[in-house]
């Protein structure tokens, strides 16, 4: 199991293999990665290498696919194997939030979007909801821009604001880990910069695992990077090392744009 730092890893992926077609072929082959707490870990690699699949296995949202199954290994989050029957996926997802590539706020008001996760857990006091919404919107660096129009429709915001709204929605339920699946790929550069700046502040409180196509993004915001290719983990090192002095030739070829 490769670790890249001395901090206690909050996510341990241990010899993990996964298949989308009931075990006929493996999409992920014997992956072992550890993500330390309150750091940003980036997964990079060409299209179809399995990085999104691995990310989605972390909050078991692959359970939606009927034919998906784990063919080997474990994923431990906070020390607990998440694929055992004792683990309730609902509780897991409250602790491991996810931000998607295509931002998808509900066609409700901004307030209702952020309060959605809390409302799922039962009727809440109005003042509690207000506080939580403000805290989340501040945490997502969106409060100043929307504090006067909390009841307006969320779809009236720009793309970058909507994605930050989705992030606010995710942190409103107080997860420990935030998974981000190419969160900036649908955004323009300014919006991307806003989101990256946000990630820089978020990593003080949350552990973040981000899948990204952009290597510059990985260098800018991540502490550790894992490079995947065709379902296998090729290299996992601190970001600076991986990009300036990669140990594996395939890593160097990919990051310098020689293939992929």
């Amino acid at each position, binding site marked *: 199991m490769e670790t890249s730092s001395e901090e206690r890893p909050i996510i341990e992926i241990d010899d993990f293999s996964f298949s989308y077609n009931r075990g006929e072929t493996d999409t992920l082959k014997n992956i072992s990665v550890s993500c330390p707490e309150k750091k940003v870990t980036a997964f990079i690699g060409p299209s179809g290498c399995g990085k999104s699949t691995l990310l989605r296995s972390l*909050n078991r949202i692959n359970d939606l696919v009927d034919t998906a199954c784990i063919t080997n290994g474990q994923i431990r989050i906070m020390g607990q194997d998440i694929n055992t029957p004792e683990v309730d996926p609902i509780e897991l997802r409250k602790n491991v939030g996810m931000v*998607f590539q295509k931002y998808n706020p509900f066609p409700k008001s901004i307030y209702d979007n952020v309060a959605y996760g809390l409302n*799922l857990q039962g009727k809440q006091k109005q003042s509690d909801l207000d506080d939580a919404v403000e805290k989340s919107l501040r945490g997502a660096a969106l409060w100043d821009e929307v504090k006067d129009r909390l009841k307006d429709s969320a779809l009236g915001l720009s793309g970058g604001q909507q994605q930050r709204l989705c992030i606010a*929605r*995710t942190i409103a*339920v107080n997860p420990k880990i935030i998974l981000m699946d190419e969160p900036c790929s649908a955004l323009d550069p300014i919006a991307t910069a806003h989101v990256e700046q946000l990630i820089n502040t978020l990593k003080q409180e949350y552990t973040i695992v981000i899948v990204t196509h952009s290597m510059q993004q990985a260098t800018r915001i991540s502490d550790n990077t894992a490079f995947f290719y065709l379902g296998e983990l090729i290299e996992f090192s601190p970001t600076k090392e991986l990009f300036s002095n990669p140990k594996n030739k395939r890593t160097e070829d990919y990051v310098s744009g020689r293939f992929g």
Partner: protein
Amino acid sequence: MQDQTNPFATKKGFLQTKEKAQKFLLIFGTYSIIFFTLFVFWEILSKGAPVLYQYGTDFITRKPESLEVLAFDAGDKLEIPKKSYKTLKTYNPDNNSLTGEESFDKSFEYTTFNIEKGSVLSDAYLSEISKYNKVKITHLYRDEQAPVVFEVLNNTPLLLTPALYKKLANSSEAFKNLSATPSKVSTNLYEVTFKEKSFYLQAKTMALLADSSLIYKLYGNLTDTLDDKPNELMEVYIPENQTVLLTEAQHQGYLSDTGTGKFGEGKLQETSVKKIALTLPKGSYELPHQLFSTLLKNHPALATSHQHSLAKAPLYFAIKSNQKELRLPNSVFQQLKKDNPLLKLTDINPLTISAPFIRFNFGQACQIKLPTTDMSAFKEANEGAVNEYGQPRLNILNEYVYPYSSGGVSGPVIGTMLLVAACMIIALFVGVAAAVYLGEYAKNSGPLISTIRLSMMNLAGVPSIVFGLFGLGLFVSVAPVITSAPSIDDKFKFKIFPALVEPGLAEIEDNRIAMIEDDKNPRHSLRAAQQKGLESFYDGWVYLSFQGWGNSLIAGAFTLAIMVLPIIITSSEESLKAVPKGFREASLALGATKWQSIRTAVLPYATPGILTASVLGITRVAGETAPIMFTAAVAAKSDLPFSDLSGSPLNQFFDFMSQSVQALPYHIYTISGKLPPSEHIKPMQYGSVLVFMIIVMIFASVSIWLRMKMRGKIKW
């Protein structure tokens, strides 16, 4: 040099013309559809709008009624209630012979009173009270021995059996004091033996023999033959040797028969019965009900004036009303008091009520038409009115009644709306649930789900009359009911738990319940009860009985719901699919369970599509006749569905749902197909059709408006 050719110019040729022709064809097809639709609409609009204009809102608010056409002589100082006068003007706009209108207030003398506990009344009088007051009457029990008062109109000679005379004498002073003479009445009876054989008898002889105890099999139709050719011979088969007693008349007829069925003269058996003869003078008498009904049943020649029921004894009852006191017109009140000696009244006060009336003259003999209710009010107002010559003011020359040719469509309209509403509630509930299951939970798993989908699509093509028969067979005949008084027939039933409440007297009588609670031999009693004509029984248990819901609103609603279900399910599934997958994923990623995610993040955004589907459903359902013909609709119903509900709210709801209703499509069918055509019924037809179309369009518009409002809120 300007000789550049335009590289993008249109190329001429056959392809262009074909293109133009196709475009023209499409335009023509579209506009011709619009044209024909407008033409049909115009036809209905032009014929129906004048009707609605003439009758005004009355058309919508009145129930369908018959039209009475009255021809009468000139007369003056005729009176009519003001409301009916307005109707008179509406229905007879061209009548010029109406003159001298003046309005006045006609006063009616009423009496107000209160009824004390422990009073006894006959049913007819109770319904009179209900007619004039808003009351709730609970029947307690009947007393056969309760005294009733009745009036004998003429001096009538009677021949009573000694037993009856004794009872009469014992219970009434008046009878005791009558001079009674014993007499003998002899009747001749002839004993005839019939042999097992086939033979011929004249029709009129058969009619006579029909009343005797002879068992025979007759070939042919007796009534028709009797009407056309009473002397014609009919074939009769006697299955076994029988000895029968014939009366004088029957014997005579038998002997004079010209057919082949003679067995010779019968043996004379003289019987004489002792009877008591007396003459009952005119006057009013009081008797216990049992005796009273026996007397009247056995002596139909006795002319009496009363409103008691011969079959049902007077009733102990409890009466509840929000009014401070009850009121009745004086005449009714007098009769009420006179005929019911056990009625305890308090606080009797006179009350004068005045109602606005119009007095007018008819200058010449003419013909007016009015709906039945107004006509009866008119006739009642002028009943007994005489002019200075002693002649009745209202001199009726001729009277015709045209069924269904007046009034309005309020009953059918309300019935249709109720059916549609109930049907859509059921269909949407079941349909959306099925769509959610098929679309979200089951997806494509297995042959069972594929079979369900396939059958659902086929269901959409089934003719509507098949649905009607299906509804008849399932909902009307064998649907389950939880009741403490299940029906006596052979349908499957089993006990659930002991009943808490016995049915009240009114229920027992209305629903014809046989009380067999403590019976040792229930099957025997049940069979006997069935023969007596009773429909249900009560034995102290609540049953789950598969006896069907009968012809009722709920059966109709379920049938229509099943008819519209395929549309709702397929459209709902499509709407659910149209909601982006990202919502479900986002919702799940925030820790929602599957149902929470569907309920909060998918269903609200699929609602516009589902509402659109309901538009299609409503327009289909509102116009269907065949399914409701067998399951819910009746041609005529006296009350609106909301009236006359009693009991706890739950009970009221069940009662409400289990009554049959009038429905607009069925009403249109009735007045167009089942009644003889006449000039009076045509306007009703067009008017009803126009109202029907307007209603359907209103339903559609409401749904469309709702959908637009929702779409404005949730674009994505």
